[in-house]
């Protein structure tokens, strides 16, 4: 019981039409497997939890209410104590000349020459 090839091709064509796949009887490499793949981008991009809302946002939303930010207060207190003890961070250098002096000191290597008085 042999079925003619044309009939099988007709069947394949109908099958492809119904299931919306590509009709490719010569089995050429059409790269359709790439088009069939799902995009992985959105799932991969959602891996890390995003920032939802911060205390700062809350304060900005309700400027009339007092929002207590413990961590920030602790930090400011610590800085205040350090400054009082003279252990605070140095002032930000504003000009190139000021920062240059600092850079020279650090990048010497050998014995540093004392600055001319």
């Amino acid at each position, binding site marked *: 019981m042999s079925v003619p090839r044309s009939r099988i091709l007709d069947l394949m064509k109908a099958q492809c039409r119904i299931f919306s796949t590509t009709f490719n009887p010569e089995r050429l490499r059409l790269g359709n497997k790439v088009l069939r793949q799902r995009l992985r981008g959105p799932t991969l991009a959602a891996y*890390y939890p995003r*920032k939802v809302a911060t205390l700062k946002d809350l304060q900005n939303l309700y400027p009339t209410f007092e929002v207590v930010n413990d961590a920030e207060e602790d930090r400011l207190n610590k800085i205040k104590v350090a400054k009082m003890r003279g252990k605070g961070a140095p002032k930000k250098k504003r000009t190139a000349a000021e920062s240059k002096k600092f850079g020279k000191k650090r990048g010497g290597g050998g014995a540093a020459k004392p600055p001319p008085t």
Partner: protein
Amino acid sequence: MSQFRAKKLDLGCFINIRVIRDHTKRKVFAEHEPERQALRYIIRNTTLPQRTRAQAQLQLSQMHCYTRGTQIKNRCIMGGKGRGVFRDFRLARFQFRMNALAGNLPGVKKASW
């Protein structure tokens, strides 16, 4: 690279530079994925002229490395570690143990028989 990095940090988990980098790579990959897939389709399609396919190959290979999916690495969301990370919990093994013992992970229980 820093040209892809978001100007404002939008992460809510543990943050270090490696986590930020990986997050940036993920976003860049998601943005460029359709383009990459289109190029891959052109390269794989043998019925297209050889010249077109070669051009597509060149274009794909010249895209920035951040648009490549293989650059992405799952990192621990509580410690930023890159090794021994459970995919289901997105935690490294030690963070997983600590959180599981503390009962922060629903349904996780120490085995005993």
